């Protein structure tokens, strides 16, 4: 083993003097559209020296050393013509545990085939040894899978089922891939049966479920589900099979509500676990984890997060008898370059390389047209630099994403292929049928340009991501949804004045989480982060942020850490409605205080909860005392509070009081179901009643009526194009002037945020409390035990058949189209699979878009395998 001192010396003397030239060499080999300044940077002899130094740096554990060793190896392969230098670079990649990059070099014919045959016997033995060392053993098959250091460590630590693991690594380190493989192996080799995969966003849920479906498609005894329905779990228990639920934190609560104490899972994986720091949803995530553990304390938990400074913090609440361990890697697997672009005059732009806050000139680009607006500047630079594809453009909102995508298409149009790829035509068709014929994305994708934001329907978004990953869409303009956990990487990312949402400045960590997408491990050697107008004060208020690690601070801990202020907030919380929580501190404290009050009401004391391990007894006792005083007013059973995390128990209690004080016929309090003529008016009133009791959940009376319309159409299983078309028509009839793209975006937003998020949470609580009240007053005949309204709304279904379609994995968009052709509205899962199978050959004739047909056949095939097993 070499001494660290020697390695440091090599780094200082043999590498650092050439580091800038090395960077410039590698950047030039991977950046399109730039007229580079002519100069020779590194001689052949210098490359030899660097390769020697690089082989020594591979022995270091310092991320800084390993990163530059990777740059030497990559540079040798991509920027040098000499065959020997390229071979040496490839060997160095292998020594770094980066066999994917080595394979990429072979695939691109940068190194000649059969590298091993050119190695001497000693090198060959080393290479074989490294093959074994840099891999993990797949237990169920006995095969070895190539893996980098991070992946090996995670695999090894997580294999001990009695240990909780918190793993953190940069975006392109292959976290999701290794976790999926690990899960597959655990289920097949060790018989893990009941697994929860917590993915904090719906977009990520879809992505993970698709990946797992693919992995388990030939395993009839294993089912996956993204629906919080107990049937999959109970079925797995009945058949001694396995089930993997992929759920958001909210859906985990729904599942646990339905399963109760039966919810005994073996393994919980929390992806994007840093979201435990998020305001409001952070507490819901933490409570989901708490609840699952309380029911099954022996469960193994694995947390995954990107480049965090303190992954160990996630292990704080593990049971005292359980061991915890971290896997913490900050070593990148692909190179990342920060490229600056600034206008010199007119259509001419200077291009530079940012290193240690200093810009080093690289060359320039000449735009075809003058960028007369900021949107044009972003679009034209992206179009010029990103022509070879894999170019992601970050903008600050959905409307801007549409505009910039249009501009890119216009800029590249003359050179565009007139015959789009059939997959793009299929996507365009799906968009016209599934969103709206006038949705601009339908036309854009035909030109190889797409946009991507949070409220788009899942199937459209996932197809857009897939075609971008496959290079069929060359440009993708996106918003902050991408930081919210979608695993989408790219070759270039173009960014100017980045914000999170419209007005929130992007934190350095968010910026680097985004920038981390640049560089597809195994597909590209490097990624470019292209920063337009890079100077401080203008587009970049504080300059381009230095690379930083994210410090996880769970939302609950952040509030509890401010002992005096938090205690004061709790003291006054019975006088505060949600609407009054306007300042930053109240907004942070409110959900935490509500969550702790629920915990108190359930357990009778905070001192008996997981908090007891980390907070002083006198603090918890003081809070207990405040909660005791507050709880005098609360007559609702604690089980109701527990079922509705994130909602203020005092607000729920006020709702109960409103019911108790209601003087008319109590049947007027019931949420009516589709088909009743009073349903729309009743729902508006219910929204107002909730707002009166709980704060500003549904806004003004006028907003409540708008929300009621959308919620009902969604619940009715209406297609998105019809909901949008109705709004366009309504706008026209009222003489409104709102442009169609705005109406489309607004409708997508209303569906996602009201119909699928706010309404299910509040209406589900409303029905629970109402049932409790009706029981108390002896009106049990008014209680409807139909499908939980929360579940029905989140999935936008009101019939058994639609729900069955979605629970076998069909997207809502496809499900509602198919439902139009199914007569029976009471089909169970087996019934819908049989229907699809019996119509399999007729689906084209029934007029469904191709992507919907493919989805139906894919899902039916997986389910067919499952039923054969039975």
């Amino acid at each position, binding site marked *: 083993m070499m001494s660290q001192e020697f390695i440091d010396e090599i780094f200082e003397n043999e590498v650092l003097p050439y580091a800038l030239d090395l960077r410039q060499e590698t950047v030039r080999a991977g950046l399109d559209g730039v007229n580079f300044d002519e100069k020779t940077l590194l001689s052949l002899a210098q490359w030899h020296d660097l390769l020697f130094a690089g082989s020594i740096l591979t022995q270091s554990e310092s991320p800084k050393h390993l990163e530059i060793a990777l740059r030497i190896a990559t540079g040798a392969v991509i920027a040098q013509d000499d065959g020997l230098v390229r071979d040496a670079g490839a060997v160095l990649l292998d020594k770094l545990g980066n066999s994917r990059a080595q394979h990429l070099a072979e695939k691109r014919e940068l190194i000649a085939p059969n590298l091993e045959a050119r190695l001497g016997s000693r090198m060959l033995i080393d290479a074989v040894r490294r093959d074994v060392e840099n891999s993990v053993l797949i237990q169920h098959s006995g095969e070895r899978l190539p893996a980098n250091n991070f992946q090996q460590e995670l695999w090894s630590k997580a294999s001990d089922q009695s240990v909780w693991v918190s793993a953190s690594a940069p975006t392109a380190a292959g976290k999701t891939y290794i976790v999926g493989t690990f899960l597959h192996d655990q289920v097949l080799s060790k018989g893990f049966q009941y697994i929860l995969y917590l993915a904090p966003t719906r977009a990520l849920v879809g992505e993970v479920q698709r990946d797992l479906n693919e992995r388990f498609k030939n395993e009839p005894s294993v089912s996956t589900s993204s629906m919080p329905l107990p049937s999959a779990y109970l079925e797995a228990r009945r058949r001694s099979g396995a089930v993997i639920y992929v759920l958001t934190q909210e859906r985990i609560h729904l599942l646990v509500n339905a399963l109760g104490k039966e919810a005994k899972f073996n393994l919980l994986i929390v992806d994007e676990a840093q979201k435990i720091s998020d305001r409001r949803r952070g507490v819901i995530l933490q409570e989901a984890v708490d609840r699952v553990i309380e029911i099954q304390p022996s469960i193994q938990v694995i947390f995954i997060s990107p480049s965090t400074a303190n992954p160990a913090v996630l292990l704080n609440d593990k049971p005292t008898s359980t061991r915890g361990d971290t896997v913490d890697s900050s070593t990148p697997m692909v190179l990342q370059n920060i490229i600056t672009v600034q206008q010199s005059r007119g259509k001419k732009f200077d291009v530079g390389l940012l290193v240690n806050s200093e810009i080093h000139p690289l060359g320039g680009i000449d735009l075809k047209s003058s960028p007369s607006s900021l949107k044009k500047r972003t679009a034209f630079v992206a179009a010029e630099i990103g022509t070879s594809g894999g170019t992601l453009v970050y903008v600050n909102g959905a409307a801007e994403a549409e505009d910039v995508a249009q501009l890119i298409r216009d800029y590249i149009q003359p050179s565009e292929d007139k015959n789009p790829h059939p997959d793009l035509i299929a996507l365009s068709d799906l968009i016209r049928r599934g969103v709206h014929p006038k949705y601009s994305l339908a036309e854009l994708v035909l030109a190889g340009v797409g946009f991507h934001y949070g409220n788009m329907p899942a199937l459209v978004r996932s197809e857009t991501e897939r075609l971008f990953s496959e290079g069929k869409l060359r440009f993708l303009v996106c918003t902050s949804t991408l930081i919210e956990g979608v695993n989408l990487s790219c070759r270039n990312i173009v960014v100017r004045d980045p914000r999170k949402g419209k007005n929130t400045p992007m934190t350095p960590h968010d910026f680097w989480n985004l920038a981390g997408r640049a560089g597809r491990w195994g597909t590209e050697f490097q990624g470019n982060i292209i920063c337009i107008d890079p100077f401080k004060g203008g587009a970049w208020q504080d300059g381009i942020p230095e690379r930083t690690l994210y410090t996880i601070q769970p939302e609950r801990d952040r509030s509890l850490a401010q002992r005096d202020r938090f205690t004061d907030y709790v003291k006054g919380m019975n006088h505060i409605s949600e609407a009054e929580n306007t300042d930053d501190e109240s907004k942070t404290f409110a959900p935490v205080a509500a969550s702790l009050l629920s915990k108190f009401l359930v357990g009778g004391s905070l001192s008996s909860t997981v908090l007891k391990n980390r907070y002083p007894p006198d603090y918890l006792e003081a809070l207990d005392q405040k909660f005791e005083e507050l709880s005098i007013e609360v007559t609702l059973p604690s089980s109701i509070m527990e079922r509705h995390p994130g909602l203020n128990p005092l607000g729920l209690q006020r709702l109960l009081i409103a019911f108790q004080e209601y003087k008319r016929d109590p049947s007027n309090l019931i949420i009516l179901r589709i088909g009743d003529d009073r349903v729309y008016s009743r729902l*508006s009133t219910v929204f107002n009643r909730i707002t009166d009791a709980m704060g500003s959940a549904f806004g003004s009376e006028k907003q409540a009526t708008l929300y009621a319309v959308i919620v009902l159409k969604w619940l009715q299983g209406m297609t998105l194009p019809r909901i949008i078309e109705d709004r366009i028509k309504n706008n026209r009839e009222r003489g409104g002037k709102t442009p169609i793209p705005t109406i489309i975006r607004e409708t997508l937003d209303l569906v996602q945020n009201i119909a699928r998020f706010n309404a299910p949470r509040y209406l589900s609580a409303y029905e629970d409390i109402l049932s409790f009240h009706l029981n108390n007053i002896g009106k049990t005949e008014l209680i409807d035990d139909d499908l939980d309204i929360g579940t029905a709304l989140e999935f936008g279904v009101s019939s058994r058949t639609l729900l069955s379609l979605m629970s076998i994995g069909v997207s809502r968009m496809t499900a509602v189209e198919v439902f139009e052709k199914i007569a029976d509205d009471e089909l169970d899962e087996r019934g819908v699979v049989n229907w699809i199978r019996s119509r399999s050959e007729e689906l084209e004739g029934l007029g469904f878009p191709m992507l919907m047909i493919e989805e139906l056949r894919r899902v039916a095939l997986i389910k067919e395998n499952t039923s054969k097993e039975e």
Partner: protein
Amino acid sequence: MPRGTPVEIGGKVFQKKGEARDFIDSIRTSYDPGDSVSAEDTSFLLKAINSHPDYDTKFPSPVTSFFVGLAEIYNTKCLFAQMENGTSVQFSGKSLVPVKKRK
């Protein structure tokens, strides 16, 4: 001596037409949108709708109950009659009070 002619609607005598209009309007306003009308008010309205000038076309099927709902366009509270054929129809309370025909 109050001005105006007494009028009988729904089995109830009002001293003035204005009083009748106010009474019917008070039914409309006293409920929340989506509420079913009470038995007492239903009994009154069942008789009162007979005074509707277009009774046969407005209510093609026997009326079974009433509710207060939101009007389709302006979202104001309105009275609705639920009919035996499963449909419902919005009607104006004012239309139940006969107007004097102009000469």
